[in-house]
């Protein structure tokens, strides 16, 4: 990978820092009139998601990180790896548990997920913001209770548990916000 100098640190640039792939978030140039120039840089560690603040001498450089974001379809898991397929090339990628992480509970077959590849291997898996899933287990629905009020836990086809309104029952398909893990609405049946 090429090296990037501090003046090329634009938001979104992927670089290697302490052997970890990072994405540049912000880059501020500071310099005393008669002194050394610095760049105050905010970076996100793409593996851990943690945001770091580092100061570099201006002109220093970092190696670029071989990082690529692509949309892949989830296929299946064998318990050890989770397999994703590129719908254009049919190429298959296997993600380990660390890469799948919290996305595991949203993994629905044939759904598209944003997979970040680092050196060609999945580093992180990001679910779509909204996903439609079937309720596989919940207390029986209460007829007529569509207005307001209570909620109950419901287990979805992927294993995620979300709180849903009381009137919903098993077999129904709901729309969920994966960022908050909250029920959004009833979806049309598959």
């Amino acid at each position, binding site marked *: 990978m090429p090296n990037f100098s501090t*003046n090329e640190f634009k938001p979104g640039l992927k670089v290697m*820092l302490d052997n970890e792939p990072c994405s540049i978030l912000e880059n*501020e*140039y*500071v*310099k*005393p*009139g*008669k*002194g*050394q*120039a*610095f760049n*105050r840089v905010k970076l996100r560690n793409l593996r851990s998601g943690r945001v*770091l*603040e*580092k*100061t*570099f*001498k*201006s*002109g*220093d450089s970092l190696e670029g990180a071989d990082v690529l974001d692509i949309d892949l379809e989830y296929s299946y898991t064998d318990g050890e790896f989770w397999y994703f397929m590129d719908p254009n090339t049919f190429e298959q990628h296997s993600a380990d548990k660390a890469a799948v992480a919290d996305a595991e509970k949203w993994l629905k077959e044939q759904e598209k997920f944003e997979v970040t590849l680092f050196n060609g291997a999945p580093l992180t898996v990001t679910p779509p913001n909204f996903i439609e899933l079937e309720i596989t287990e919940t207390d029986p629905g209460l007829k007529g209770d569509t207005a307001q009020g209570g909620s109950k836990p419901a287990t979805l086809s992927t294993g995620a548990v979300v709180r849903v309104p009381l009137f919903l029952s098993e077999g129904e398909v709901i729309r969920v916000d994966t960022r908050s893990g909250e029920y959004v609405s009833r979806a049309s049946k598959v």
Partner: protein
Amino acid sequence: MSEWEPSAGIYELRARAAMLADVRAFMSSRSVMEVDTPSLGQFAITDPNIELFEVATSDGTRFLQSSPEYAMKRLLASGSGDIFQLGKVFRSGEHGGRHNPEFVMLEWYRVDWTHYQLIREVAELIAETLRLSTWQIWSLDALLEHFCQINLHDAAELELKVAAENAGIDVVGDLDKLDYLDLLMTHVVEPGIASWGLVFIVDFLEQQAALSRIIERGGNSVAARFEAYAHGVELANGYWEELNPDILMRRFEADNDLRASRGQLVRKIDERLISASRAGVPDCAGVAVGFDRLLMLAQGRSELSQVIPFSWPLA
């Protein structure tokens, strides 16, 4: 915003025009003569922390000047008396919220003045422009003691490094003592004095003298140099000027040694400035004020691009 449009609003540009006129009136009322020395010089400064734009001409490489200092000193040596220049200067690579590689500098020299007399005049200009009623003077070591609990003159590189770590600064790579001092200035002191209004910093380290003379202060040799900060923004840098051509020559050579050790291009030393110093530059104090930054603060803006017609990316 489409790319043909200016980065500053028309209101700010009117304020800019008015401030250019105000500065000229300020200087004229004090009988300081306006000069306009060349932008394209055959020589340039040796400062290792300033990079220049080189221009190919039919008569060889010329340098866009990063400050009119050397040419103005040649005028002083010719008997010009008090002079000022208000014009564009150029520094390669300096681009950020408060930096534009092409900017307007107000530089002036007062014959037979010390830097303390000049500080008073700079305060009059800045305080008037920014409507600040008071200002204060701090020595660099007192500020470092106040904000970082270190004794600057005695401190080794390691103590500055620890102070930076204590301030939560995570720096990549190795720095020397002066670099750590610059780091503490930009990351700790500047934000710290942001609520103090107008602050002058004096008594810089000997190694930071640039073209200022060295004087004794409380048993330490310090540079007779000052900087002005308003609302935490560096606005001005001034010297009680070093006049001795041999001392200047040694500093230029030391600059070039440092440039060479860092892998930077070594600069041809401006022999015309040295010759002018041999002929005799009068005892004087000089200062450079960042005009765009002063305007930015006067307009209550936080980015230079908001007061420059077309900032670097749009130029």
